């Protein structure tokens, strides 16, 4: 895979892309605004036939960072889409309509970080028990464990 040409091509195709950099050997990170997630993910998943791996969400200094991992198994490259969400309004379009398998991980992120996925087919609790208090998200930076 000629990575420089690849980056040029994808930025030409989607001018909304903020930045793209190689973060490690065979690992590409593409920074995108949240409203262009679905079209770029659809291009990678359906047009290029990349394999969906998983979604990582984290509480970074700048806000909530969501990374969508896709694998190009013919070359071994992992292409990551990085979206930064506002801390005050953590919501984003659900990927499930495009990638069917993303339903479960999005529900997990809802539980652990309290990020809202719009148009999710089943926005219910996934990991936590029914008696887990509302509004407590263990992977957030401000989460404090209760004394027993």
């Amino acid at each position, binding site marked *: 895979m000629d990575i420089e040409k690849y980056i040029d091509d994808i930025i030409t195709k989607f001018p909304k892309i903020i930045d793209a950099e190689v973060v490690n050997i065979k690992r590409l990170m593409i920074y995108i605004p949240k409203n262009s997630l679905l079209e770029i993910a659809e291009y990678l998943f359906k047009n290029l036939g990349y394999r969906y791996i998983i979604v990582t969400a984290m509480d970074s200094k700048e806000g909530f960072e969501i990374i969508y991992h896709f694998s190009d198994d013919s070359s071994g490259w992992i292409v990551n889409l990085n979206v930064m969400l506002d801390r005050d309004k953590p919501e984003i379009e659900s990927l499930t309509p495009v990638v069917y398998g993303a339903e*479960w991980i999005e529900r997990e992120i809802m539980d652990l970080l309290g990020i809202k996925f719009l148009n999710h087919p089943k926005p219910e609790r996934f990991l936590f028990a029914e008696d887990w208090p509302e509004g407590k998200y263990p992977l957030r930076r401000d989460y404090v464990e209760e004394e027993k």
Partner: protein
Amino acid sequence: MGKKTLVPLGPYHPLLEEPEFFKLYCDGEIVKEVIWETGYNHRGIEKLCQSKTFEQVFYVVERICGICSTSHPFAYANAVESIPGVEIPERAKYIRSIVGELERIHSHLLWVGLAGHFLGYNTLFMWAWKYREPVLDMFEIITGNRNNYAMFTIGGVRRDISPEQATQLLNVLEDVKVKTTMLVGAVMDDPVIHARLKGVGILTAEDIHDFGAVGPTARASGVDIDVRRDDSYAAYDMIDWKVITAGSGDVFAKAEVRLLEMYESISIIKQCLEALKKTEAGDIKVKVKEIPPGIGIGHAEAPRGEVFHFVKSDGGNSPVRHKIRAPSFTCIPTFRRSCVGGTISDAAIATAAVDPCYCCTERMSHVYNYNTGKHIMSAAELIKLSQEKTKILKAKLKV
């Protein structure tokens, strides 16, 4: 539409590594819908890893899975070593591959046994698990433990393999190869197993792509993916081996892929042992002083498929974010396609086909009438149902 009955297939047993709960909605005997619920044993490993040092995380992730307990350290090592760009010694690469492939052999033998049990072939179960024992003993000789081997560390491995151990291992492998041939014969030549497994729990290549399923589940549907070849790590690009695939996508194809993969694993270990002779004994580790800020993404092919680890470092002692994805996370949802349209008696083997650590199910699942809540049957009876179907087939085929 007749009465809709809810059949819960699910262990709430805390001893299991993956306690899952499946609600099978059935119309008569036909499964109409499968709903997956999980979280019964959520241990917060990702959060825990953020409070450990990079070195300690190895021993935490090793305990995610008791059966494939080297695949998580493998993927984590690939991820964390890629941040400073560490090149580990060649000898360590071979030893890592040997441990990884030994694990594949014992895990596949375990699956063959369990699948046999679900079908009512208890002799197959006894055989497969009996032949798995010498492999576990070999683990104890090489690593010191039958499970949770504690073999990996940042920059290499913690123990060397001596020439005596290598000879012992070769003898065990010869024996395992003979037994594998016997098991392959027992599965492939049995007309009842053909009748029970062929055309059951079919997944197409499109289903695999939709769910992102990996490993033998994907390869049995003709999807030719294997991290060991596609994004090679450890010693896999230095030796000669091939990826096993099958086309039909049913449970039989998954059994075929797993059985034939064991031959490849045996061949890989033999080549690695041969290569160990050419490297210097004791050169198994390089020193890594610190992990600089950066992102490490590593994956490894576990017996069940790709294990994926994402590690973010800020230059401190511990990861600021550690995301883990085990293969079952994307393989289990495929039940939505593989079980629907089949009978309840086929659901047991169709769910077991992706190898989701299923051992406790028989003790914990019960069938209730969805409308009245009345108890209909227990899991033991469910497996009995599956076994009886085999018996009827046996009588029909006169074997």
